[in-house]
């Protein structure tokens, strides 16, 4: 068996007295889609921020492709192949959609003309090409979520962190995004995804990691996890009630 692309080793992240992520360990194999689920406030976004370098872990470590990356800044991690989206989208509002994606393309294409060409390709892939000249501020929520994915993809990452890119979309838009994610997987991208919509996460994930109050309470295939009594009680129980 090959070395996992990402290893999260006993990661703890505290904000003052609050333990947002509590001794969480799991790993992601190359080419997998792993879903990270859990109720609101479970610590999913915080864990993303630790993996992508926005927070240093209070305890534990993150190993990416065999290298300890804990505490490395985000711009360094983008360079080694980690792309991420933000749950609260961060468009460069005053710039065009194309400029937004071109900026990300500079990472692998230092010449402006090359970066622009690459950005166009990404926009064709994500279906934003016909809105390339719109100001990013003028996009709908669906467009802005798609722009988040476009920017992360323009880094040509080997590992993608997607934080609620489907939530808030109507069913047609949601299906398009799911379709896009499956295409990315088919290309060989490894993906860690946070999503609330069960229909989506159960379908696209090879494995699931379940957080509750910062702790990992279950891990396994979607079928295993959905029959796990802890999960049913902590998470699905909440929905059934």
């Amino acid at each position, binding site marked *: 068996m090959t070395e996992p692309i990402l290893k999260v080793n006993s990661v703890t992240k505290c904000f003052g007295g609050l333990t947002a992520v509590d001794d969480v360990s799991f790993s992601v194999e190359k080419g997998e889609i792993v879903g990270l689920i859990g109720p609101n406030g479970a610590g999913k976004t915080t864990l993303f921020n630790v993996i*992508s*370098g*926005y927070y240093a872990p209070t305890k534990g470590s993150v190993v990416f492709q065999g290298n300890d990356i804990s505490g490395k*800044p*985000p*711009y360094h991690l*983008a*360079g080694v192949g980690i*792309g*991420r989206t*933000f749950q609260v989208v*961060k*468009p*460069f*509002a*005053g*710039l*065009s959609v*194309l*400029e937004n994606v071109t*900026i*990300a393309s*500079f*990472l692998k294409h*230092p*010449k*402006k003309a090359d*970066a*622009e*060409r690459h950005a*166009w*390709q*990404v926009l*064709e*892939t*994500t*279906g934003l*090409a016909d809105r*390339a*000249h719109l100001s990013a501020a003028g996009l*709908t929520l*669906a*467009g802005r979520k*798609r722009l988040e994915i476009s*920017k*992360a*993809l*323009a*880094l*040509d990452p080997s590992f993608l962190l997607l934080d609620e890119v489907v939530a808030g979309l*109507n069913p*047609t*838009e949601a*299906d*398009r995004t799911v*379709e*896009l994610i499956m*295409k*990315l997987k088919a*290309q060989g991208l490894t993906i860690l995804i946070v999503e609330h919509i069960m229909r989506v996460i159960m379908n696209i994930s090879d494995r699931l990691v379940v957080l509750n109050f910062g702790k990992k309470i279950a891990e396994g295939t979607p079928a295993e996890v959905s029959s796990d009594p802890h999960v049913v009680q902590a998470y699905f129980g909440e929905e059934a009630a």
Partner: protein
Amino acid sequence: MKTSRGAAILAIITAALLILPLVVHDTFVLRVLTEGIMWIGLAIAFDVIAGYTGYLNFGHGAFFGIGAYTIGILMMQAHLPFWVALPLGGLAAALTALIAGIPTLRLKGAYFAIATWALSRAIQQLALNVEFTGGPDGMRLEAFLNPLFFYYLMLITVGVIFLILWYLLERAPFGLKLKAIREDEEGAKALGLNPTMLKMQSFILSAIPTGILGGIYAYWITFIDPSSTLGDLVSDQAVVMVVFGGMGTLFGPALGAILIFAFKTIFWAYLSDFQLLYLIILGALIAISVIFIPNGLWGTLVKRKAVARPQQKPEPASEPAALSAVAVPEEGN
């Protein structure tokens, strides 16, 4: 606006400015033009950090004054020739930006504006209180009274500054990277950009030409003192010119510099007893531009230039292009 037409207009203006002194011999006119050109340079240099990077530097005048004093001290006390002293004036401004940038560039918005303003006041106080600057009495430079020389020196220097900044900010990736920092510093980090590094580079890029212009100014005017070169006016006017003309562009601040400087010249020629009124109008102009033309004059007049969408299908060889062959269904709304 078509790039070729813009370049043609620019070439005509440059040519006109180059031959102008052959037609106009009035030294007063030449002097006004020299100063006007200097203000174009100061405004576009200010816009590197303020407009492109989004950090309103209310201490821009300090770079100007430090350039002026460096040239003054090096020429009068170290007896260096002007051409040796001048680049050192740019270097002194760059060092000032480096040292001032470390604490201040961590601050955001109004806090950065206040901190840079306070720092520039401190530098002015320093110049007033140490010996080698001549204190409040200022410093007289060896006079080289050749208006034509200074007109051409200013014109060529500002022309070169414009071309270098235009290349770095509008042609090279650097300008877009700075705008990413301006729009969302945290988001930019995820895309591989190091905001600390970019902000420092932009601050230094703003400081160097400002210091050089201060140096030319000192040699030209032959007298500098803390209130004329290190005072508020340089920063204040640069802010008005850039905000009024259009931030985050090069033509906007240039246009703003021309209009504000022309206004100032006319105002002071006819209403020199009402200098306070001039400052009030300057302040009102900032408020009016921010409220009614947030993109400035240039941003309101000229639409964003569109980059053409490539006609042929992207190469199937490269990675994301493989996907684009598969049609993605159209989005709902």
